[in-house]
């Protein structure tokens, strides 16, 4: 069963920015899914459309098979959203915020209070229940929003950059919490620009850049792909057959150009020895520009900059 299906979703903001250029996405029930991408890629816009905070330009979104347009109420009850920016009343008490949110879903007050207690306890906020929300630390505010998103017990929990501004120690405990509720059956989607976060938590991943999904695969397959570097080799003489090179994937682009995928664990010497043995003479060599690689370089640089300043 598909927890989330997005078909050909586009969004152009009033100022003309085309934030989503026709994305397709499918997340299976029970998955722990990462939507990874640099700043401005369109992650929050995607989540905004799913959570009805941004109106889409075109396309179709369904939640567990229920269209967000045609079966609005059923679909919405199945989603819990933790937005990127804090969006609760700063002057309300922690407990009231969670109980009120339950009320908006039609949950009667006694049950709402019971649920609020349950989730505030799980997120370590029970002793803060009577505090005004503005007095909480950044990490607590984030957890308050998680409790609020869970109070109507949705099947799909979506978190937009949940660990932004949360220190490393608390980040771990938040990961543990998310892992546990995922094991208990909740489908989780999170956006992030931390590779490490996606890597340690998520089973499947989509990468978004400039409003386009550039990759949608399992975490494992992605990591393998990233372990490989592709080189273009220009040969001195035309050849007819693809050289057989043990341990490397080789494609003959044209009679004088080879494309070789080299795992990062392999030495290039091995490649050249094998080529020389078979009498291939390489005149020049360059890296193949790979969009995914480029994207990751950008993400990693950003991460490093972020960690350095943190």
């Amino acid at each position, binding site marked *: 069963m598909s927890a989330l299906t997005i078909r050909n979703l586009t969004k152009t*903001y*009033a100022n003309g920015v085309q934030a989503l250029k026709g994305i397709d996405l499918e997340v299976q029930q029970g998955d722990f899914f990462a939507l990874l991408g640099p700043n401005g890629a369109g992650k929050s816009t995607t989540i*905004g459309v799913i*959570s*009805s*905070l*941004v*109106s889409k330009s075109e396309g179709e979104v369904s939640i567990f098979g229920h269209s967000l347009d045609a079966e*609005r*109420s*059923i679909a*919405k*009850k199945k*989603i819990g*959203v933790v*937005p990127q*920016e*804090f*969006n*609760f*009343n*700063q002057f309300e008490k922690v407990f*009231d915020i969670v109980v*009120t*949110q339950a*009320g*908006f*879903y*039609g*949950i*009667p*007050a006694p049950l709402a209070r019971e649920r609020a207690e349950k989730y505030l306890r799980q997120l370590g906020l029970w002793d803060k229940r009577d505090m005004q929300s503005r007095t909480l630390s950044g990490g607590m505010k984030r957890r308050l929003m998680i409790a*609020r998103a869970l109070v109507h017990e949705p099947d799909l929990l979506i978190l937009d950059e949940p660990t932004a501004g949360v220190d490393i120690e608390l980040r771990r405990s938040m990961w543990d919490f998310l892992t546990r509720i995922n094991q208990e059956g909740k489908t989780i989607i999170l956006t992030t620009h931390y590779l490490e976060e996606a890597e340690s938590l998520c089973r499947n991943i989509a990468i978004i850049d400039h409003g386009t999904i550039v990759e949608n695969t399992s975490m494992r397959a992605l990591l393998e792909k990233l372990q490989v570097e592709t080189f273009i080799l220009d040969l001195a003489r035309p050849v007819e057959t693809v050289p057989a090179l043990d341990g490397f994937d080789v494609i003959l682009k044209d009679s004088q150009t080879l494309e070789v995928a080299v795992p990062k664990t392999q030495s290039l010497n091995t490649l050249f020895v094998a080529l020389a043995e078979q009498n291939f003479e390489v005149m020049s060599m360059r890296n193949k520009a790979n969009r995914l690689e480029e994207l990751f370089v950008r993400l990693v640089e950003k991460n490093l900059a972020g960690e350095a300043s943190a």
Partner: protein
Amino acid sequence: MSPREQWVAFLTIVTKEIRRFTRIWPQTLLPPAITMSLYFVIFGNLIGSRVGEMGGFDYMQYIVPGLIMMSVIQNSYGNVVSSFFSTKFQHSIEEMLVSPMPSWIILTGFVVGGMVRGMLVGVIVSLLSLFFTHLSMQHVFVTVVVVVLTAALFAIGGFINAILAKKFDDISIVPTFVLTPLTYLGGVFYSIDMLPEFWRTVSLANPIVYMVNAFRYGVLGVSDVNVYASLATIAGFVAVFFVIALWMLQRGTGIRH
């Protein structure tokens, strides 16, 4: 959502609204009580004793219904415009937009919250007026209906103002430049029959004239205008403004990208 769930959601908003204005009562309930007491003392007692009769009543009795209506108008409008604007400003409106609650419940919840404040202040001011004069109610039905409709109309007006407002300053423009002048010129302090023909006709274009007079009819039994036609007109405006506000909310004007 089932009707039961919708009812729970509606009550949640109303309760939240009531909790808000009672929590900050020194800003919401106290000021109208003080202002209106001053009106009673100055216009009713001090000046009123020299004015003599108006419409067959002593001046104090004549202005009390108008002042009560003025409180209802200002407070139902003021409650919704500031509450909804700050909900929008703090983005906590998103808590409602992500929920399955339909737009008409969000609108009705805020409007009823504003009406409760308007009418509560109306009751407070009425009780205060008893220290200065005696009031009896001539037509209970008319009195209740006109208060409810007026509170509803201005609560909806406050909602529309809040939707259109982009900054805090925008929520005081209408009360200062539209509501206050219209109320003062709306026959609160005088009978429009006293005015020269031309100004009397102009006054008839002021909707507040009808509300004040319908209410005064309910309390004192006198009116400058036809009461039932007034009630019907106010009800018509409530319906029209409700539809406009709902349409704006549904479109996401000023709240959804």
